[in-house]
């Protein structure tokens, strides 16, 4: 069995979700007072959905990032 220090796929998932969460949350806050002409605009879905993405993303970053790189391919 070969040893590779490969970053787990879950870490990539976490990073991408955090970035997306921040962008979506920011856009939701930016148009809080004047949401666009969409159905149910008053629910401000981008705000709470963006926050949810950040929480999920941070969980995956914390669980699989930093010093927790895989020892080998097997733990991917």
């Amino acid at each position, binding site marked *: 069995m070969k040893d590779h220090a490969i970053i787990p796929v879950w870490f990539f*998932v976490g990073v991408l979700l955090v970035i*997306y969460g921040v962008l*979506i949350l920011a*856009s939701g806050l930016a148009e809080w007072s004047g949401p666009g002409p969409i*159905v149910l605009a008053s629910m401000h*879905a*981008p705000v709470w959905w963006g926050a949810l993405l950040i929480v*999920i993303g941070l969980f995956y970053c914390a669980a699989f990032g930093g010093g927790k790189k895989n020892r080998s391919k097997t733990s991917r």
Partner: protein
Amino acid sequence: MISLGGIDLAIIAIYFLAVLAIGLYLKRFAQSGEDFFLAGREMTAWVAGLSFVSANLGSLELLGWAGSAYQYGILAAHWYWIGAIPAMLFLGIVMMPFYYISKTHSVPGYLRLRFGPAASALSATTFAAMTILMSGVNMYAMAVVMKVMLGWNIHFSIWISSLTVGIYVAAGGLYSAIFNEVLQFFLIWLGALLVPILGLIETGGWSGMVSRIQRNFPGQDFTHLWSTLGRFQDNPMGMHWTGIVFGLGAVLSMGYWTTDFLVVQRVLAAKDLRSAKLAPVIGSFFKMAVPLIVILPGLLGLAVLPDRLVAESALQPGQHSYNEVLPLMLARYFGPGLLGLGVTALVAGFMAGMAGNVSAFATVWTYDIYRPFLRKTAPDAHYVSMGRWCTIIGLVVSIGTAYLAMGFASIMDYVQALFSFFIAPLFGTVILGMLWKRVTPAAGFCGLLAGTLSSVAMFFVVKFDPSALSIIALSTHAKALAEDMYRALWSFLINVIVTVMVTFVTKPKPGSDLKGLVYGLTKIPMEGELTWFARPALWAAVALVVLLLLQRIFW
């Protein structure tokens, strides 16, 4: 048409950059043939399971089945439940040991070990053709998204996305495909789940949605799964329950989930037999939930969209087709930011669908056509290089097939027609070969050939003489999907009959040649040493119970 803001475009651009970066990062890990074509066979059950179900959850699935749900109602959910779950569990528990223990690279590779080169070459050739055609469908689905939502030039969308897929798959092989499928899994769920949530809030829940549909389409039943299947003319699909149970559940889905190498390849990448058995079981739970983000938006479209959608072939200026229901629902509820995420989810689905097809194509071409028939002995690096070139060539060819898909009433009609040609007969050959040691190499080849040719022949007979539908699909009320189900059933039966007949007049292989390939001659490791909650069979039983409950709830 909707216009994307800067933040939406940034979200899409970040996705493209991320998949390219991941592909180039993984290139260093995909040096040998085992790495490039089977991701080193070292994936955990969870990664293999998510990749297994994601390989099938492309934008084609999202758009096509959402469109089918608008067209046929909740009957489309059969393709996620009875048309998927029993087959996925059968693959994991019954068939996977044979695939895994034989250490084959592919399904045609298994056929070569079991039946010899003729059956393998036939299945490899038909599979290669099918993957290219399917890639084309994915491109077409993508073009629909870009046309409806963004007004982007179709050719620009196709080439940019294809180029990106080509780079990351050619660099990292199945590693890249699997990593991006897992990424795509999260994006699709998180990008699409808001549509049913907001849709149900708007309609006042399930019952509110049903009453709106009844008001919009009086006299038609779009929300019952089984109760309208007693007669062809009682449901929007023109389907009979025998077509769903025997054509879809027993043949077509079994064929797709157990012999379509695109999905089986993901499970073959698992690190051990237990992970390989568990991966489809894990996948089955997610598969059962997919109607939430695919079928439900289609039903909500029936309830809330002000304009009636029509078939692609009947499209007039200003109208939208069935396949556009999901983009229209995204545009209805999503503002800046979320819209970018929704579009990215569809783009990710499209690219993962493409990547899945081209990586499977590269494997089958290299290992099942090029190596056995064109260049038997070459260094491993040569075959990896061939795999990389195949990825690019496969993509270029599949661009041409994108235009073929445009002539069908809905995307799923085209896909199901392809499956009935190639997958249903293949299932007959593989399952007989695995479970009955007497089946001979000549019988395997003849059965597969007869099944495939008869399926294609039935398709063209109905095209030239529509009245033949009453024989092939048992009713003139049968619609395209129903016809596909029956064609699959007949081609499977023809395959089985021919295989059995030829078996009895030809000489079987000696038992010593079939060890590790056939039931009764293969030592399958028992699960006795595993704790009860770690056994794949237990979770397969739980999945079956959930499946039955869903049938009861939506009967």
